[in-house]
């Protein structure tokens, strides 16, 4: 099965309006399979979330986390079980903090790298000098409520370019939820998993292997087999998304540019040089960013 996750959320433990129970209820009402708590610089809500879910036998999976909210950028930590101090962060060596969190078993990623920072909210823009992306697990390519072209498009392109250049970085998205903003029409993060499976392990496998989908409701499946790439589109039933399969277009993005095809096409692997990294993206109507439905996991051709 594919699990729909919301990976960037806040509560009254930091600066949001939902308390822990209200956030859980909000996601249950929308059919979310699992969610992360990523309050700013505190882990105080994590045990509360676990307790509420366990005591009430609620059908939703929980990922403990935190959003390291630093002077020079925000770092999402998922599967975080203990606080890792960040205050001595050096903007020239952010890898130290990424590695410190990773050493505790957390998955780390850059949140909204192009958000507006000073003088509105210093630190919201990622201004650290990252020279070694091997310590980073993912990039939040859509922070749903941020401006599409000013903030999210450069984040998407940053991730694409890093993946094209050989980095193993998963794509995620998030609502950066601070209140009861409707989820309909926004992107969610999807991973493969089993019903009743261990969400921490499933998330780790998905992130570490770049097996995440960022989607508004349809998942583009594209796997190379027997020298050809065939496509399929799976609907997830995400509330607010009405599929228009007849309008689907696929963009195959590479470092060299972009090719387009339809879901029914079969693409020969031989059209690409060995080692090429492809990122399949599903659109409706045309490949304008406004029409992007799904960013699928990258494919590295042999």
């Amino acid at each position, binding site marked *: 099965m594919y699990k729909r996750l919301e990976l960037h959320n806040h509560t009254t433990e930091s600066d949001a309006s939902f308390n822990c129970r209200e956030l859980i209820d909000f996601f249950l009402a929308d059919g979310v399979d699992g969610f992360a708590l990523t309050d700013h610089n505190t*882990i105080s809500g994590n045990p509360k979330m676990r307790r509420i879910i366990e005591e009430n036998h609620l059908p939703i999976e929980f990922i403990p986390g935190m959003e390291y909210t630093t002077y020079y950028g925000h770092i999402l930590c998922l599967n975080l079980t203990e606080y890792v101090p960040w205050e001595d962060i050096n903007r020239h060596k952010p890898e130290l903090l990424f590695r410190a969190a990773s050493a505790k078993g957390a998955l780390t990623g850059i949140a909204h790298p192009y958000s507006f920072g000073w*003088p*509105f909210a210093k630190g919201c823009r990622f201004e650290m000098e990252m020279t070694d992306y091997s310590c980073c697990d993912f990039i939040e390519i859509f922070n749903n409520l941020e401006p599409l072209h*000013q903030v999210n498009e450069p984040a998407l392109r940053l991730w694409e370019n890093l993946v094209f250049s050989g980095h193993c970085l998963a794509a995620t998205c998030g609502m950066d939820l601070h209140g009861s903003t409707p989820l309909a029409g926004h992107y969610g993060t999807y991973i493969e998993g089993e019903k009743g499976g261990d969400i921490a392990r499933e998330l780790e496998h998905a992130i570490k292997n770049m097996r995440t989908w960022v989607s508004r409701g349809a998942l583009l499946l594209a796997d190379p087999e027997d020298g050809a790439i065939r496509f399929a589109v799976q609907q997830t039933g995400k509330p607010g998304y009405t599929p228009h399969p007849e309008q689907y277009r696929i963009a195959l993005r590479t470092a060299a540019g972009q090719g387009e095809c339809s879901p029914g096409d079969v693409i020969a692997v031989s059209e690409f040089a060995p080692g090429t990294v492809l990122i399949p993206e599903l659109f409706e109507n045309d490949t304008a960013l406004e029409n992007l439905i799904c960013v699928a996991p990258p494919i590295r051709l042999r």
Partner: protein
Amino acid sequence: MEDMKTIYQVGGTLCRDFTGQISYTVCLDQTYRELDIEFTFGPRHFSPGDVSEALKKELLDYCKKEYGLAPSSPEELEHAIYHEMKTEIHTIATLNGTFIGGIHRQLETRHMYFSPEEATEGCIPQPCIEGVLRVTVLAFSVLLDNTAYTLTVRAR
């Protein structure tokens, strides 16, 4: 917080554009059941008297260059300057080197309260309050010179 003993109080001023933290370490003289850390600061926003034409231009130029933002009207600019731009200060506490709470809410007066049973949101209840308390004031953005702050630690 009435009837709690003040065991430490300190104040200071921050200069414009300071980024960084100031930590205060308190060696608790005994075991306490309750702890309250109060932090106040101000001003948080610009007042009309703070904003010269030169500063307004500096802010406008920066936002245009960095974010491609250009206010569509003088009212929008005024709103951005007086309501959206802010001094931002966080507080984090550790006890014997272990994180016990952080406050991100931008309250000009905030409390971090701890007891064995409860704690302010953002903080973790503490069964035993003894040893070494460290409170860190984290200045993300300071808009104005002479931004004042006070930190008070109380216990019972």
